[in-house]
């Protein structure tokens, strides 16, 4: 079986401007939504109490809301979680009131209403922890970005490192943009997914760069644009198959993982889809704009066709 029967190199770079424009618009939209709507941060980041209760019959959200409302919390969110019988209640952090008191008060009130209610899960995070988590998240992101840039700069060349990281950060912003637009809950698990996808999709760019380097060496008559086109064309089958198989796993999580893994899998899905797009169309194009040349990659002392040459990389 073979999905990709491509006879000629696809002229990706001829349309680079179009692709970059599309990227830029998506990116701008994502940034716009991030600022206008903001992320719907989970309790882990904001501090507060989260309760999940279940009823034996489909729950009456209005009634639950009214019951919790009488307890005098300022901002309470009540919504279904997973099924109609499960209800999630979010209470903001209150100064001076401990978590235990909050969740117990709510549960007692709900029990008075309907004795069948069952507490499935509570989660309380103090405000100081929330701030730390947000800070640690940013630190982790910085660590990943710097680590990858250094690694690629050493392994390839700084122009590649910069374009790969720009392309993939653009993915991260787009994922965040989706979360802002749909107001999906941004939790620690989603943060983990975003960082994992950042590390994962950078390797797409790595494969293409590897091939570009090899092509510069092999086809001396090709110009930069042709070399890049050929590199992308010959790796596209592998790119789509690997992303497809990763996506199968993520899809399985989306289908079977339940509510807890839902947004985690969602972030991965967006990351994988845009990961293909950005490494194929954006990373190489940025490298081209940055003026990548044969001389950048081929060191003066050449060891052509040496299979043990580590720098030869692999072409797939």
């Amino acid at each position, binding site marked *: *079986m*073979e999905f990709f*029967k491509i006879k000629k190199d696809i002229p990706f770079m001829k349309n680079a401007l179009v692709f970059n424009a599309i990227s830029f618009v998506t990116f701008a939209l994502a940034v716009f939504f991030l600022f206008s709507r903001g992320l719907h941060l989970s309790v882990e980041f904001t501090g507060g109490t989260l309760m999940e209760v279940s009823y034996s019959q489909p729950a009456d959200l209005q009634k639950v809301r009214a019951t919790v409302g009488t307890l005098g919390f300022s901002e309470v969110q009540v919504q279904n979680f997973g099924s109609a019988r499960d209800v999630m209640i979010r209470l903001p952090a209150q100064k001076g009131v*401990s978590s*235990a008191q909050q969740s*117990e008060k709510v549960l007692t009130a709900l029990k008075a209403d309907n004795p069948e209610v069952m*507490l*499935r*899960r*509570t*989660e*309380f*995070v*103090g405000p*100081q*922890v929330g701030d730390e*988590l947000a800070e*640690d*998240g940013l630190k*982790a*992101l910085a*660590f*990943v970005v710097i*680590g*990858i840039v250094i690694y*690629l700069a050493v*392994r390839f060349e700084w122009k590649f490192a910069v374009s790969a990281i720009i392309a993939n950060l653009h993915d991260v912003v787009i994922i965040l943009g989706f979360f802002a637009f749909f107001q999906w809950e941004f939790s620690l698990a989603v943060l*983990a997914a975003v960082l*994992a996808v950042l*590390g*994962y999709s*950078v*390797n797409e760019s*790595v494969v293409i760069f*590897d091939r570009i380097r090899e092509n510069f060496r092999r086809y001396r008559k090709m110009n930069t644009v042709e070399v890049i086109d050929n590199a992308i064309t*010959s790796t596209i089958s*592998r790119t789509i*198959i*690997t992303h497809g*198989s*990763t*996506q*199968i*796993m*993520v899809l*399985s*999580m989306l*289908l*079977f993982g*339940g509510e807890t*893994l839902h947004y*985690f*899998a969602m972030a991965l899905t967006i990351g994988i889809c845009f990961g293909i797009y950005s490494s194929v169309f954006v990373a190489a194009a940025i490298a081209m704009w940055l003026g990548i040349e044969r001389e950048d990659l081929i060191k003066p002392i050449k060891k052509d066709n040496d*299979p043990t040459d*580590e720098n*030869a*990389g*692999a*072409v*797939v």
Partner: protein
Amino acid sequence: MNRYPVWKYAIIVIALLLGVVYTLPNFFGEAPAVQVSSGKATIKVDTGTLQKVEDALKGAGVTAQSIALEGGSIRARFDSTDEQLKAKDAVQKALIPDAADPQFVVALNLVSRSPAWLTGLHAAPMYLGLDLRGGVHFMLQVDMQAALTQRVESLTGDLRSLLREKDIRHGGISRNGQTIEIRLRDAQQLGAAKNLIAAQFADLQTQDVADGNEFRLSASIKPEAARKVQEQALKQNITTLHNRINELGVAEPVIQQQGLDRIVVQLPGVQDTAKAKDILGRTATLEVRMVDESTEARAAEQAGGIVPFGAERYLEREGRPLIVKKQVVLTGDNLTDAQPGFDNQTQEPVVNLTLDAKGARIFKDVTRDNIGKRMAIILFEKGKGEVVTAPVIRGEIGGGRVQISGRMSTTEANDTALLLRAGSLAAPMEIIEERTIGPSLGAENIAKGFNSVTWGFLVIVAFMCIYYAMFGLFSGIALGVNLLFLVAILSMLQATLTLPGMAAMALALGMAIDSNVLINERVREELRNGVSPQAAIHAGYDRAWATIFDSNITTLIAGVALLAFGSGPVRGFAVVHCIGILTSMFSAVFFSRGLVNLWYGSKKKLKSVSIGTVWRPEGGTAVKAD
């Protein structure tokens, strides 16, 4: 060219064997069990206890599948939960005659059903996190500033009495935040005070304060001493928490230090958060009182008569009653430390107590006036007192250093010191994070994680087999081996598996197949270029390796960042993610190559390999390579 030397196959076989052995325990499931552990620092679970448990079970007519004493607790395994509950009642009745004073913790637990030979190899099932088995998780923050202030306060008192003792006149000592300010008359006194502090208070550093014509000295706690105070406060709080949690009857509580000033408490299976919180936040107090040695009191002690007015009856640890005066001499607030040790002369085990200045003064007066009499040290918990020890006063004790001795074994000395120290929290704590997961939710989460991994795995393997034929099958087997290694390593490390961890497992498999796709595509490409099958396999693996390595490194960078900066659920994800990347490099490259070599390597005149369609653009038509 596609042959592995024997040692490479040997590595594969050994790795597979280890993988299978350490993965096995996960398949046996868990059996209901009753776990008996010590409820007090002074009680040890030993073979005697084991005998008692066995007798109790026999008496109740319950037969245990197995019963064993390991690591300070007894675990008895049963066939069904009914028997487990019956057994628990029987054991509880036998071991805890007085419900108000439990000596043992009898708890329900789940124990792996894996056979003894596996347990002997330290092969245990993966350790499930709270979100998979249900329970409560608390993170407590210790108020270190309060601990330091308390320490400075006690040092201030010590300093005051020492200055008086040495006859150094001062114009007032006061504590200002965490510094002690001393006003002195003249330069000479200032010098004397400074020398005294340097000689006697190793924890303090002094600084002259120039303030017009006044002589002032400010003393503050040294940074290294402050660190020690904080470490001790944390350690003591952890000990106290241990003692309190024992009462909850939790089979495997986790109480761990996190960072410099935090404690994580995890109680698997506990659903009653309110009670747990109540017990964690409780304060125990210590009191020193005089023993009532009047004849009436003696009579009451021996015959159980009426307790005289102004006295109370308490039980000693051995269960003997003791009549103690109601008047309190000292409380635990005055006790700064308790450590086990040995007497200088007799080499007998002793407990050394350190009192603060006020306590030392009172203690000196009391001991001077009561030579030959007994004093009792009583620990109050939940409003119930127990006499820890009641020694006879041999002489006046000054200086705030008290030695408790007399017919104690080393263990007893250790336990008494622990009990005295553990009486109260060294510093106040606050719950800053709390999570409760119901047991049904835990089971659901396991099923969800398991389903995600299984279905994703099956679909990927099916796709690989269709798309890459024989090579796809090799890739699929390699992926299965990857999963085997991942589970084996997680079981071996006893790393906590959480739902995000299971998600990481699924993702690791999804990413691991990447390497095999790289290899297979590369081999196809070599074949497309007209290279001979053996050379194509060789080049495919060799050439793909650099790319696989590069791509795994970038993924690993992200994983390490998550491990370093993540906490809670993210950590659980990161651990599995990182291990998954490492195992995938082994299984996808080294192991799958082994399979390919075994299959094709020996065939000298290999005409074709089964790797699906190798399509050649030149011909314009597809050429089947197999």
